[in-house]
């Protein structure tokens, strides 16, 4: 295999055997199916997909926590099943909302403890804890017991835990979950700088947030029901929609609307309805602008009122809608 590849999977699959109680027979649940990915060293790679798409299963396999049912996976050139010890020397992982560490220990002690498991000398570990806590913005909480931290501060501690060991390959599973807008931005800035510092580092990020993937990732794979539906740079993925016309229509629809009538109009590629108490929104992908007139006709036939109509550039969200047929939060 080429040395430039950090993560490689071939026909990777995972089937879970599940049952709700002991009397039931096991049922098979396909979590991953024939996943082929090749992530280069130095790449910041994003996995986009709804809950249950298989993102976390893939990360678990790559971090040696789960065996694949089919196929092979290598990380930093080592097979995750045959040489897990070699893989473990080179990786780390941070998951969103994790509650790792011990509540009785301070932030500094928890981070020091995890650094010990990676063979990092205490002095080096303490220097890195100090520096990283300044960057992430929790240097004033290093002596606080982790049980006394808010969700956001705890997540910042987790993020330091992932970076403190200076891994070759880092897995971030929804890292900004639970963080406020400012803290999320700080984390994203830090991730970018960390990647820019060393071209040998590789980062695999899963996220629900399209903006995060768009801003950070060199390449993105969209995954749903265990299958990779598309894999390319965010700009190339968006280019696949450049021929289409994308509209966002805010409607006044006090008694709802019939979405299928919109979907059945010739030239409508995708139509997603979002209903909130304060507004009803249609996200529509059309073959071309001219189809819009038929949409407007249908709106008036259903006695709906247009509050706002906007044509916009394609986003990753639109790519996702086109491929999956739903918004990520609804899928």
């Amino acid at each position, binding site marked *: 295999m080429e040395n430039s590849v950090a993560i490689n999977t071939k026909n990777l699959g995972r089937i*879970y055997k599940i049952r709700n109680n002991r009397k039931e027979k096991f049922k098979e649940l396909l979590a991953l199916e024939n996943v082929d990915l090749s992530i280069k060293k130095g790449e910041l790679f994003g996995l986009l997909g709804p809950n249950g798409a298989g993102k976390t299963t893939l990360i678990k396999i790559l971090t040696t926590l789960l065996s694949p049912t089919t196929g092979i996976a290598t990380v930093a050139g080592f097979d995750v099943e045959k040489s897990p010890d070699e893989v473990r*020397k080179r*990786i780390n992982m941070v998951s969103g909302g994790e509650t790792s560490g*011990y509540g009785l*220990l301070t932030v500094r002690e928890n981070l020091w*403890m995890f650094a010990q498991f*990676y*063979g*990092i000398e205490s002095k080096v570990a303490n220097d890195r804890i100090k520096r990283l806590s300044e960057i992430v913005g929790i240097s004033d909480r290093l002596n606080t017991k982790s049980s006394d931290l808010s969700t956001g501060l705890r997540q910042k501690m987790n993020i330091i835990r992932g970076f403190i060991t200076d891994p070759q390959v880092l897995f971030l599973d929804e890292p900004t979950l639970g963080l406020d807008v400012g803290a999320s931005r700080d984390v994203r800035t830090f991730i970018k700088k960390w990647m820019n510092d*060393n071209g040998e580092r590789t980062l695999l990020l899963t996220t629900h947030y399209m903006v995060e993937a768009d801003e950070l990732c060199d390449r993105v794979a969209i995954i749903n029901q265990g299958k990779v539906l598309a894999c390319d740079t965010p700009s190339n993925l968006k280019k696949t929609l450049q021929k289409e016309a994308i509209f966002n229509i805010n409607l006044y629809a006090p008694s709802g609307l019939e979405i299928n009538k919109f979907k059945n109009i010739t030239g409508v590629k995708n139509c997603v309805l979002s209903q909130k108490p304060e507004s009803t929104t249609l996200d529509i992908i059309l073959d071309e602008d001219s189809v819009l007139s038929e949409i407007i006709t249908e709106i008036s036939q259903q006695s709906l009122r247009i509050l706002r109509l906007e044509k916009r550039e394609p986003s990753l969200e639109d790519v996702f809608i086109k491929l999956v047929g739903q918004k990520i939060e609804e899928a």
Partner: protein
Amino acid sequence: MALVEPISKKRSGLKLFIMTVFGRSYPRLVGMQRERSWIFFDIFVPLLSVSAYVFVYRAIGAPEDYVGFVVVGGAMTAFWMNILWNMSSQLYWEKEQGNLALYIISPASMMAILLGMALGGLFATLLRAIAIMIFGSLIFNVSYYVVSFWQLIAIFSLSMIALYGLGMMSASIFLLLSREAWHISNLATEPVYLLSGMYFPVKNLGFWGSAFGSLIPLTLGLDAIRQLIFKSGPSLGFLSVKIEIISLIILSIIYLIAAKFLLAHIEKLAMREGRLTENRR
């Protein structure tokens, strides 16, 4: 300038093993200082059950050494409780908390993690056991007659090695369990008090009963300690102290080796079945 300097050297091999042991024992050692409720729950509560047995023995006119047997048994109870709740079922709690996944993906050996848990727990429990011994001896006026101090240290050390080896072994089995870990720990509490002769000379269970109970290293350790510190100990002992020392050496070797292989095997099994991070699958 780099955001954070890269790490030039990470330790591996034996040094990493030792660092991991120290790192994982740290929460146990520090936890004791920060959560002082253990002084009440782990010293005075066990003393209540010790008191109950003492009153029974005194009421029926049992030899006074039986009171000492109970106090020593009460002190040793702390180690069994530590094995059950802070060793065996600990990996289940670590899994629930999310720490287990982080241990597994680190280059640290799981044996080192378990050893760290064992040593931290052993030190913390030793303080509790000493406190129970001191309070129990003072309250119930227990007198000791130490035959051989060195044998006493040897038997105690061997008991702990074998006992914590058993704890490490059962911890790996608990890796596969979910909520039933709680019930199994509960289940293993009272029967072990009976089988190991915590509050009475184990010889009373008969040869086969005592031999079965001796699979728990606490049984032999407790029996030998009683023989070495009470005048009537040798006459109430199950086997001679020498045989018990040899048996404990054998148990230590078996349990530690079994722990290593079982841990490796069960880790692989748990990876295959997806049980390292989730309980429902």
